[in-house]
């Protein structure tokens, strides 16, 4: 069973009455226990593809299936539930709440997961903080962390509700080489432990860690 599947996917935008095609006839499957790298030039449609997989955007035509469930006709609340349970996001700019500590940032997604109570939230947060090696920084605010540390917090937050899919948009874009390697190693480890990890990146370093590389050119997968 594919974790994610796009069938005959098209995405168009209307700009000043002109149709702009962003994704053209996308047919792709993403499996568990694999790390995928989506490469391409700026404007090739990589981030749009990631937004669609992450239910933040919708296909103009075609189907998106997550765990064999068709997403396109789902209501907003149902899509939100899928994002909460199935998908973890990692961004280039980390997107941490600057007014919350490391612990609080990691806990944020857990508050809407009915499977958690106060005790299990704290236990899970402890586990994630240890996993990313930030025990000594748990009460610090994002402005007190380095870029690499912030991204590790973001990864921990992405894992808060045990999602099986991790979507990372240029996760190492703002990091130096050492931190880039650390982050990629964490993401690789996650894929080896059963998750489907999809990374959009310009960096060739990502290719070294990817099980499969997809090239997007002018909205088409090569």
């Amino acid at each position, binding site marked *: 069973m594919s974790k994610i599947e796009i069938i005959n996917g098209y995405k168009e935008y209307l700009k000043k009455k002109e149709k702009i095609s962003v994704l053209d006839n996308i047919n792709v499957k993403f499996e568990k226990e694999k790390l995928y790298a989506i490469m391409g030039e700026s404007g090739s449609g990589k*981030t749009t593809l990631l937004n669609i997989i*992450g239910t*933040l955007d919708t296909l103009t035509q075609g189907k998106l299936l997550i765990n064999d469930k068709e997403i396109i006709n789902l209501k907003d*609340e149902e899509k939100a539930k899928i994002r909460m349970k199935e998908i973890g996001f990692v961004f280039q700019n980390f*997107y941490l*709440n600057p007014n919350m500590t490391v612990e609080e940032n990691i806990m*944020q997604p857990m508050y809407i997961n009915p499977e958690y109570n106060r005790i299990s939230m704290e236990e899970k947060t402890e586990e994630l903080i240890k996993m990313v090696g930030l025990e000594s920084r748990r009460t610090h605010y994002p402005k007190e962390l380095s870029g690499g540390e912030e991204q590790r917090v973001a990864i921990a937050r992405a894992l808060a509700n045990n999602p099986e899919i991790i979507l990372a948009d240029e996760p190492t874009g703002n990091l130096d080489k050492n931190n880039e390697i650390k982050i990629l190693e964490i993401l690789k480890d996650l894929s080896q432990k059963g998750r489907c990890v999809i990374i959009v990146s310009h960096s060739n370093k990502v290719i070294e860690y990817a099980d499969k590389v997809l090239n997007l050119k002018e909205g088409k997968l090569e």
Partner: protein
Amino acid sequence: MINLQIKSILKNKINLLYIILFIIVFIIINLAINLPEIIYKYYDSKIPEEYKEQARTLYIADGNIELTNEDMENLKKIEHIQDVKIKTLGMQDYELKLTNIVVDDWKNCSKIQNILDNQGILTGREYEDDWIKGYEKINIFMNLVVYMSIIIGTFTILISYINILKNEKENHKLLYILGYSKSKIRYIVCTQILAITIIGFFIGIIIFDIIFQYVIPNILNIELEQDMYKSIIINILVTIIPLFIATGKSTSHIKDFKM
């Protein structure tokens, strides 16, 4: 969840400035609501005690008008009219009968005069000094000041809410990505805004109360009584109306969020 979100919004230093702004707005709004009371009591304190009774008495200026008992009873039914009586003045060769209309308060005399004027009954005031004339003039502008203060206060609160939401836009979009539904986000938005407003309101009300109960009475040497019912209604309205307007569109920016 809510505690964390409220803590997050209060940690933002810009929102502390909004709290200070709300303190000032609520002080001004509540002073405006009670301005008629302050003005009235101040002017009332200037009318000599011995003339207070006369100050609230009108007489019918047209000597040809003779009111029957029924007419007098009908007049008493008009709001603010306490009594209608015939006063006999003994002159040198004859008796002069005057119909006096006693109003509950001198500040309502103008209102009663207008009502009776519309009924064709011209009246005069038994006593009218410069203070009473001054009050009549200021009364016209006072209501304008009151309404303008409330309208400007409401707009200030609305614009503040919109700016607070703008500042929190990225955090709200993050919540959407993390799987918070739009209804949950709207709930968080309302709670965050109310938290800031309530803090500003309570501190503002305490300061207003000190000004109203102690500062103004000491400066003007008067005793004041707050119109609590009016205050509560207006304070709720100036908060709720902007809240509805601002939060009604609070999640509209989220639907376009992408990475």
